[in-house]
């Protein structure tokens, strides 16, 4: 049997201590009697029991008693013992030395075991905390890799499934981490994963292997497997294996939790999308039908009763067809935009835009629905450029103005469009003198398919404000409603301003005041 260096050194130390005790005893020999010399050896074996392992201190005890007998017990230089005089002394000496060294060894083993348990408990707690805080399986796996790496091993590796368990052992179906593996080790990890069972040295299963293969266990199946290479010269430590398995199981539980959370989030998103789809379907089936009905009504009346209608009547029907078609187009635009915004599929095309221009473009479109010119635009002079997606911003503004026209009676007064800058925020307000919005409705009006109550005369898909809010949010802004002092509501868009890029004015362009 090969004796390891460690054992050899321990043996040397034992002998050195023995020699030291012997030396001291010999130095004291002429001055003290036999019983006191024996105490030197008791002291020595007690002291060495602090450092030496049990086998070495027992060896020390036996050897020191033999040495004492040989060197000091008369007749000196022989193992002969005067039974009546010294047998008791030697017997007591042997018993005390052995008892002390064995007790000391047990005490030390228990103390070291307790310290190790505490370390392990702390490591488990730390890993648990890290796993709970981690958002991604990758981070979780790395934390286990680190935890296993902190244990005494000849190298560790992890294999984690990406998704489902593949039919064949496809290395691409899993994430690999840690030391480079031999083909046999890879096969071992797959086997461990598929069987969801630990094996390797000292486990009673494939005990000939110089490593542990530990499954990363979830409640149903393994999520992966860990390899724990061992020193082939040392006996495998079952406590260490239990601890490593516990660390692996922590990851397995964390992965399971993560999996459940993701499934829940997916289900929730799917439910939301489903809700949006059914709401849109409801809008299409109900709100789109209304303008379609009046178009068909007017057109069929013109087709079948044309001769009996007055010129005036015919004109009205024709106007109605045009108006309703425009309204339908706006509703189609809103629906489409909302679906895109809600789905997050819309990439904003941001550019530096002039508010004056944007307002101008909106007014050009809205004036068709505003024959009495109720909209009054009041723009602060020299407004800064804003960075927005022009068509979306125009849609927002158009919806707000249309709403104001629609929900405030024609004789209620003007609709004011106010744009001004307060510090680094742009405030755009559309103010009407309509009936306002009841407190109970204020929070809901920006939701989809909510319309002001009790105004069946007004039509719309209830999408307008939802689109407005989605557009405002996509630009990092906010849209809110406030009731005005003397009746009516004020819809207010707030947008934080950015510094527009510098501009070089050509020298020839500098205005010279006359």
């Amino acid at each position: 049997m090969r004796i390891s260096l460690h054992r050899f050194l321990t043996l040397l130390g034992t002998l050195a201590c023995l020699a030291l005790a012997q030396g001291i005893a010999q130095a004291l020999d002429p001055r003290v009697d036999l019983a006191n010399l024996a105490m030197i050896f008791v002291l020595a074996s007690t002291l060495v029991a602090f450092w030496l392992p049990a086998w070495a201190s027992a060896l020390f005890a036996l050897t020191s008693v033999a040495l004492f007998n040989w060197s000091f017990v008369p007749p000196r230089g022989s193992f002969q013992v005067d039974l009546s005089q010294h047998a008791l002394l030697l017997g007591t000496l042997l018993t005390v030395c052995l008892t002390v060294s064995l007790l000391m060894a047990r005490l030390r083993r228990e103390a070291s075991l307790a310290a190790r348990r505490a370390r392990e408990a702390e490591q488990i707690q730390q890993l648990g905390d890290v796993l709970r805080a981690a958002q991604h399986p990758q981070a979780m796996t790395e934390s286990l890799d680190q935890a296993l790496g902190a244990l005494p091993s000849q190298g560790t590796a992890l294999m984690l499934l990406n998704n489902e368990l593949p039919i064949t052992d496809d290395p691409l179906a899993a994430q690999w981490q840690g030391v480079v593996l031999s083909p046999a080790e890879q096969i071992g990890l797959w086997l461990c994963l598929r069987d969801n069972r630990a094996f390797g040295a000292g486990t009673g299963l494939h005990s000939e292997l110089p490593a542990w293969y530990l499954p990363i266990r979830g409640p149903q199946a393994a999520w992966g497997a860990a390899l724990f290479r061992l020193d082939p010269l040392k006996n495998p430590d079952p406590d260490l294996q239990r601890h490593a398995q516990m660390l692996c199981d922590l990851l397995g539980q964390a992965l399971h939790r993560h999996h459940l959370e993701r499934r829940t989030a997916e289900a929730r998103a799917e439910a939301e999308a489903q809700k949006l789809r059914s709401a849109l379907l409801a809008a299409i089936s109900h709100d789109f039908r209304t303008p379609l009905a009046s178009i068909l009504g007017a057109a069929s009346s013109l087709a079948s009763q044309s001769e009996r209608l007055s010129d005036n009547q015919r004109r009205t029907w024709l106007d109605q067809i045009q108006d309703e078609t425009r309204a339908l187009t706006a509703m189609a635009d809103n629906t489409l935009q909302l679906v895109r915004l809600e789905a997050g599929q819309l990439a904003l095309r941001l550019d530096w835009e002039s508010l004056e221009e944007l307002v101008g473009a909106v007014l050009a479109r809205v004036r068709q629905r505003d024959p009495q010119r109720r909209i009054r635009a009041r723009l602060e002079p020299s407004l800064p450029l804003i960075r927005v997606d022009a068509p979306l911003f125009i849609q927002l503004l158009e919806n707000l103005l249309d709403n104001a026209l629609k929900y405030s009676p024609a004789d209620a007064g003007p609709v004011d469009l106010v744009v001004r800058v307060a510090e680094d925020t742009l405030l755009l307000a559309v103010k009407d003198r309509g009936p306002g919005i009841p407190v109970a409705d204020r929070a809901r009006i920006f939701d989809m398919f909510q319309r002001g109550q009790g105004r069946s005369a007004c039509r719309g898909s209830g999408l307008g404000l939802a689109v407005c809010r989605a557009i405002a949010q996509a630009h990092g802004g906010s849209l809110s409603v406030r009731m005005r002092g003397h009746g009516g509501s004020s819809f207010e868009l707030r947008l934080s301003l950015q510094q527009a890029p510098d501009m070089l004015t050509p020298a020839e362009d500098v205005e010279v005041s006359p």
Partner: protein
Amino acid sequence: MMCVLLVEDDRDLRALLRTTLEVEGLAVHTAASLVEAQALIRHTPVDLVLLDLGLPDGDGQTLLDELRQRRNTPVLIISAQPSDARKIALLDAGADDYLSKPFSVAELLARMRVALRHRGTTLRPAITRYTHEGLDIDLSLREVMVRGQKVHLTPTEYKLLARLVRNAGQVVTHRALLADVWGPDCIEHTHYLRLYMGQLRAKLEREPAEPRFLLTEPGVGYRLADPIHMRS
């Protein structure tokens, strides 16, 4: 008689447009597919093309590209809501203008008139005089009058205005304006345009927030309102 090629795959819309154009006294050829349109354009002299993009056998832009290699026949795109990027690409590819469906007949006829005026069958010199609702611009004299009052413009403002006058009634893309007025290095600097258009409106428009001359095509470019009188 002016001859129009109408490329549109929807039967009802095709019939409707054909009737309205014939009522206006135009000769109309119709095509329902790309192949049909390609064949027609090879054998028939056409003064203007109305082109739908989504055709059953391909994209209408193919026809535009083929046409532009040989002729400058005006092409108006009629399409279901193209994106801004698409509009710009079409204008760059040589389309004269675009109309998003649905559109009114009045709008269509107005756009057709503008397109024909700019690139009629006979080559005309560039437009140098623009008169519309009190705004009078004479490029040969470098003179701009608002309601009889002479207006002073800076050189850049004048260059910008002149560029729009030459395409009066048509949309001119941001890139085209920036390249022609500021130079090809500046095609990304839309904020130049915003500021100078603001200055021009302040000088020429009665209500800058509701312009009647310098119209904005959001996300695409600018259009000088289609004038009633224009001389070359």
